[in-house]
């Protein structure tokens, strides 16, 4: 199949192109906490090789449901609740890419790269969840106060704009929205034209949503978040109201927005008054709903409140974030009620039920494993590992060229391909590079030449039998093959078991080793052979092979 040099070169070019493409620095959007303590999105360019915690520095926590102080009724549900709660706090960690993951049946793993204060991270994870139901600003008091807030901001020296366009074209935004949203265009218009000049109001859109609901373009989120926390703004917000963010961004057309709600400060209900919440398909409407049960006292209170506020919206907040769109109160609700989710599916209803239960039934967590690596240690590890790798590479190059001369030169250039393929493979499989992985890479630099050595020794032997270089090369490659395959199979197998049973750093080692072995076999039997073939074709008739 790869008989001609041309087709071989094409294959090599494709492999190189693939590896390079997977290593080209990419723009990634990270959410980071700035020096002022506000989360913002930062776009950076970086090589898509993931580094493990042991190289980046950070904290690794494994948590389980604490059963030591009395049994937890439904540990599986408790774990899901805890997972929901921790995920909802991801922003608070203040790191760019937190990992929150269920491992096995009963464990949650949280990995926070680059964090410096493990005590704070632990406190965020272990804090019990707080659920509250609050009425939204039905009389639009906040919107009416917006001009005053804008004036207060202008007086404080905050001007409209920043890098974001002060007045994103309403038409442009409507183009992407569906017809239902387009029907609201009149209101969207008023929302942006009425307050167009203000530093805060120019960033808030309403699209004719519910009273007290605003949408903030995702890119303006950090700016608005810092604005609404300024003392001038807080003083100007009508008494009894508070601005809170929605938990999830929503999309309107092609753009992504953060919902911002103006809600009453006073909660109607808190999590301790909720007994249970379950997702169900309503038998009459066939729609997904969440049914909830309150405590006796909670039911009394809820009945009283809902009676007065039929037709109003009620925001469900977990840890200060509004979950989904606030539903409308249809009638007086006692101990049992249900939340209709419109055309949402059962999964979404289950998620909401989980949020409610998470706030109602705290899931006691205990830390069963904790590892922290300081950023300085991680940096040292990278530097030392890289140094070791460079020295190892130089030694291998010296030995190969010294021993095999011309053929060694071919092998060394193949080594360059080997390193490129290994790193490219790691990047395209989204593998994580850990410290043992780095060690595995250095180690495999030494091992990678093995296949070349096997082949070269064979070629030497064939040359000794007075074969021509062409025949010797051919025979050398063919005879070395069984030994190369046999020898590498065992290493791949042990590495596979290490991957299966190892923890993070060891997994990183196993992946690098496996990737390294494949790369070294490909370079030795394919790339080096192609070099030889090219040399054989070009050499003068009398030229000898120095090997």
């Amino acid at each position, binding site marked *: 199949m790869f008989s001609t040099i041309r087709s071989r070169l094409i294959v090599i070019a494709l492999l190189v192109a693939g590896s390079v493409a997977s290593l080209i620095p990419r723009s990634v959007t990270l959410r980071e906490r700035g020096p002022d303590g506000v989360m913002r999105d930062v776009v950076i360019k970086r090589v898509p090789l993931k580094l493990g915690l042991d190289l980046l520095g950070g904290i690794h926590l494994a948590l389980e449901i604490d059963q030591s102080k009395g049994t937890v009724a439904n540990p599986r549900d408790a774990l899901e609740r805890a997972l929901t709660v921790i995920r909802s706090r991801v922003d608070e960690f203040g790191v760019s890419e937190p990992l929150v993951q269920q491992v096995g049946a009963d464990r949650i793993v949280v990995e926070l790269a680059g964090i410096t204060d493990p005590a704070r991270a632990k406190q965020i994870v272990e804090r019990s969840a707080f659920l509250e139901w609050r009425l939204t600003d039905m009389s639009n008091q906040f919107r009416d106060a917006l001009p005053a807030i804008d004036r207060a901001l202008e007086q404080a020296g905050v001007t409209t704009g920043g890098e974001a366009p002060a007045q994103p074209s309403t038409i442009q935004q409507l183009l992407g929205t569906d017809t239902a949203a387009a029907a609201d265009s009149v209101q969207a218009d008023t929302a942006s034209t009425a307050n167009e000049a203000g530093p805060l109001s120019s960033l808030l859109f309403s699209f004719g949503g519910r009273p007290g609901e605003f949408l903030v373009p995702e890119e303006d989120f950090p700016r608005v978040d810092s604005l609404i926390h300024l003392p001038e703004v807080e003083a100007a917000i009508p008494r009894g109201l508070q601005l809170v963010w929605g938990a999830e961004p929503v999309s309107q057309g092609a753009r992504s927005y953060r919902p911002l709600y103006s809600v009453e400060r006073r909660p109607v209900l808190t999590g301790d008054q909720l007994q249970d919440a379950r997702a169900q398909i309503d038998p009459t409407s066939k729609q997904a709903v969440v049914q909830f049960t309150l405590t006796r006292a909670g039911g009394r209170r809820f009945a009283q409140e809902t009676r007065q506020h039929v037709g109003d919206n009620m925001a469900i907040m977990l840890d200060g974030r509004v979950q989904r769109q606030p539903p409308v109160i249809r009638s007086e609700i006692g101990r049992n009620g249900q939340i209709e989710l419109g055309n949402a599916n059962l999964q979404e209803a289950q998620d909401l039920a989980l949020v409610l239960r998470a706030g109602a039934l705290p899931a006691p967590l205990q830390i069963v494993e904790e590892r922290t690596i300081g950023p300085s240690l991680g940096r040292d590890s990278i530097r*030392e590992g890289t140094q070791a790798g460079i020295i190892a590479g130089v*030694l291998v190059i010296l030995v190969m060229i010294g021993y095999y001369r011309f053929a060694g030169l071919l092998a060394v250039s193949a080594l360059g391909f080997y390193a490129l393929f290994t790193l490219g493979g790691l990047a395209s499989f989204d593998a994580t590079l850990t410290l043992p992985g780095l060690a595995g890479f250095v180690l495999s630099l*030494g091992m990678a030449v093995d296949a070349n050595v096997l082949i070269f020794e064979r070629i030497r032997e064939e040359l000794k039998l007075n074969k021509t270089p062409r025949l010797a090369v051919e025979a050398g490659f063919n005879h070395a093959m069984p030994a190369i395959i046999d020898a590498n199979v065992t290493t791949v197998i*042990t590495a596979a078991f290490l991957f299966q049973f190892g*923890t993070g750093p060891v997994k990183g080692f*196993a992946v690098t080793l496996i990737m390294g072995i494949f790369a070294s076999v490909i370079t030795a039997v394919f790339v080096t052979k192609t070099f030889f073939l090219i040399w054989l074709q070009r050499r003068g008739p009398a030229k000898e092979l120095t090997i």
Partner: protein
Amino acid sequence: MRLFDNANYNVMARWKPAMIITVLFVIPGLVLLAVHGLNSSIEFTGGTLFQVHANSPAVETQSIRTALSSGGITGAEIQTFGAADEFVIRARLDPRAQVSEETTQETERAVRAALTAAFTQEGYEIVRTEAVGPKVGSELRERAVLALVMGFGATFLVLWFRYEWRFGLAAIVATLHDIIATFAFVSYLNLEISLVVLAALLTLVGYSLNDTIVTFDRVRENVKKTKRQQYFYDILNQSINETLPRTVLTSGTTAAATLALLILGGSVIRPFAWVMTFGIVTGTFSSIFIASPVLLWVERRWPSEDVKVKRGIGMAAPVTA
């Protein structure tokens, strides 16, 4: 350049000194191991570990010990780690005591408090912590054992299918030699057994087998190729000598890599580098001096048809040659 070109060493005759070296190396190491036990990392025992970087000369082993004991923590191990101003503090969980996950977390708080009280916040810096509860510890032990058993099991299966059983048996004996010798080495240096060190052990098994397999592939080929009657003993010698340049060169480049790691790779990876470096030495040794003599011994006890018919009974070559 040529090394061991046309080498013709009677390697097989050296099995006795090789055996003596092995015994002399392994037995004291195993005795030491039996006396001291394995130095398991807290990953397996459960407990807490701190790596502390000293910012002031006041922080040294003795003052850390004093600080800890005045904070109510006794029995912690304190060692320098790689450099004079780096320390590792280990508080292992006593396997006999009643322990819970909270104990590890409390220990951590107590250690931080004790160090801050003695050296102030600026006097020291905690660069690494590990706190492993007893449940995770026993789980990791289980997984480590599983990885080792299944890793070895699978490689043995491959040898079984790929080779005739006599070759497989000899390769297994050579590999077991490497594992035992490595444990002896680990106990001499009192290296801590962690998951990463076990990973090195499994890797060196793969590496050592790799060496043995290359030699045995040559033996197989030479058995097929030889037309005239020849002692199996000589075929083994010939095969070892023919593969000697490759063995030396590959071991050399790999050893260059592991030595670079050992010297430059930093203190965290050093135990791994030690085990790998030793693994290359023992792997090379065993594939030359252990695997082939064992194969000869197995062939003598249970001669294969191939060797008997083609090579005659004459394979009972003079062992003392």
